[in-house]
C-alpha cells in the first residue's frame, strides 16, 4: 500500500521542483511521510524566496482593476507566479480574478498551487469553474494534482465533480492519492451504490488499480469497508480468482484479509470458497500476513466461514 503513497509523493515533489519524476526516483525507497515532510520544507523555502517582490506584486494587484489583473495574470505572470502570488492577494480579489481566467490557465496554475495556503480561494471558486478545471486535469491524467485539492474543495464541489465524471476509474485514481485519508469515508459516501459497484468492478481490471482500491478501502471505517467488501464478494468467480492472483503477486493480503473480515458473513463464505484462495501458496501468505496481530485477528474472525481444510490450517 505504501508504494502508492510513495509514488504520489515523488511525483508531487518532482512537480514542485520542476524536474522529471525519473530524476528523483531514488526517493522511492523512502517513506512517503518523509518525502511529504521534505516537500513541505521545500515548498516553504520556495514561497519564502522572493516573498518581498511577490508581496509587492500582490499589493499592486490590489490597486489594479480585476479585469486588468486577470490579463496580467495570464499574459505576464504565468501559472507559476500566479500560484505563488494567489495566497498574498486576499481570497476575495483572487476569486474575482480567477473568474476571468481561462480554465486551461487555471488548470496549469493548479499544478503549482499549494492548496493549504490557498484553501479560502479554492473553497470560494464557483463550482462551474471547478468542473471545467477538473475536466482538463482529468484529460491530462493529473490525478495526483486533483487529489491535492480534495482536502480544500467544498463538499458541493466534490459532489459536482463526481457527478460530472461518468467513469469511476479517474475517481479511484484521484481518491487514492488524497492527502487526508480520513476523507475517504466521505468520498465513498458521495457515490450511489451502483457507482460503487462499478468502481469495484473497474478496479479489478489490473493489479495496480486493485492495489489502489485496497489502499482506499484500508482507510475506510468498518461500515464502508464492509459495504465495499460485500460488493467485491458479489463479483463473478473469474474476477474473484483474478483478485486472489493480484493479492498473491503483490503481497496485499494484510489489507485484503481485513476487507474480507469486514464483509457480511454470506459474502465472506462466497469469497473464501473459491479454489484459487484455497491454494496452499495463498494459505502460506495468509500465515505470513498473520504475523501482524490485527491480521491474525481478522483470520480468526472469518474462520467460521472458511471451508474446513482452510480453517484447519489456522486452528
Amino acid at each position, binding site marked *: 500500500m505504501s508504494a502508492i503513497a510513495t509514488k504520489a509523493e515523488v511525483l508531487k515533489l518532482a512537480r514542485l521542483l520542476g524536474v522529471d519524476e525519473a530524476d*528523483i526516483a531514488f526517493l522511492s525507497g523512502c517513506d512517503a511521510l518523509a518525502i511529504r515532510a521534505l516537500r513541505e520544507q521545500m515548498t516553504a523555502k520556495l514561497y519564502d524566496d522572493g516573498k518581498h*517582490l511577490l508581496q509587492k506584486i500582490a499589493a499592486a494587484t490590489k490597486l489594479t482593476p480585476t479585469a486588468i489583473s486577470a490579463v496580467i495574470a495570464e499574459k*505576464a505572470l504565468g501559472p507559476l*507566479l500566479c500560484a505563488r502570488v494567489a495566497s498574498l492577494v486576499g481570497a476575495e480579489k483572487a476569486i474575482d480574478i480567477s473568474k476571468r481566467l481561462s480554465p486551461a490557465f487555471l488548470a496549469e496554475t493548479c499544478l503549482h498551487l499549494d492548496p493549504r495556503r490557498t484553501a479560502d480561494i479554492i473553497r470560494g471558486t464557483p463550482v462551474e469553474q471547478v468542473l471545467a478545471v477538473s475536466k482538463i486535469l482529468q484529460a491530462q491524467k493529473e490525478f495526483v494534482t486533483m487529489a491535492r485539492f480534495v482536502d480544500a474543495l467544498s463538499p458541493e464541489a466534490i459532489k459536482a465533480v463526481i457527478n460530472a465524471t461518468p467513469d469511476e476509474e479517474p475517481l479511484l485514481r484521484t481518491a487514492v492519492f488524497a492527502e487526508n485519508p480520513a476523507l475517504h469515508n466521505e468520498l465513498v459516501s458521495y457515490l450511489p451504490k451502483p457507482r460503487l459497484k462499478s468502481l469495484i468492478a473497474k478496479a479489478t481490471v489490473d493489479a495496480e488499480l486493485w492495489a489502489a482500491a485496497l489502499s482506499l478501502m484500508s482507510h475506510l471505517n468498518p461500515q464502508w469497508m464492509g459495504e465495499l467488501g460485500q460488493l467485491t464478494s458479489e463479483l463473478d468467480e473469474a474476477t474473484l480468482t483474478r483478485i486472489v492472483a493480484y493479492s498473491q503477486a503483490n503481497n496485499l493480503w494484510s489489507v485484503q484479509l481485513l476487507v474480507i473480515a469486514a464483509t457480511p458473513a454470506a459474502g465472506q463464505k462466497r469469497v473464501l470458497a473459491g479454489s484459487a484462495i484455497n491454494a496452499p501458496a495463498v494459505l502460506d501468505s495468509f500465515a505470513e500476513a498473520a504475523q501482524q496481530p490485527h491480521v491474525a485477528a481478522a483470520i480468526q474472525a472469518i474462520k467460521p466461514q472458511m471451508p474446513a481444510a482452510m480453517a484447519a490450517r489456522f486452528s
Partner: protein
Amino acid sequence: MPTAKSNPLAEALQAPLPPGLERLSPTQLQQLTAALANAQQRQRAALEASTEAALGHIPMLLRGAVRKVLFG
C-alpha cells in the same frame, strides 16, 4: 538524523532533514539540493521578467502608482 552541518540539502533548507531520509547518499542529497536551487533560480528569473512585463498591461493612469508599489 542528518543535520544542517552534515549535508548540503539540510544546509539549503536551513533545517534538519525529516526523519526517514537517512538512507539518501551524498550524491542523491546533492541532486536534491541542486534541484531546489534550480527551482529557486527559475522562480527568481520568472519574477523579474514578469514584473516588468506586467507593467505593460497597466493603464497609463495607474502605471505610476503601480510602479511605485513595485519598485519604491
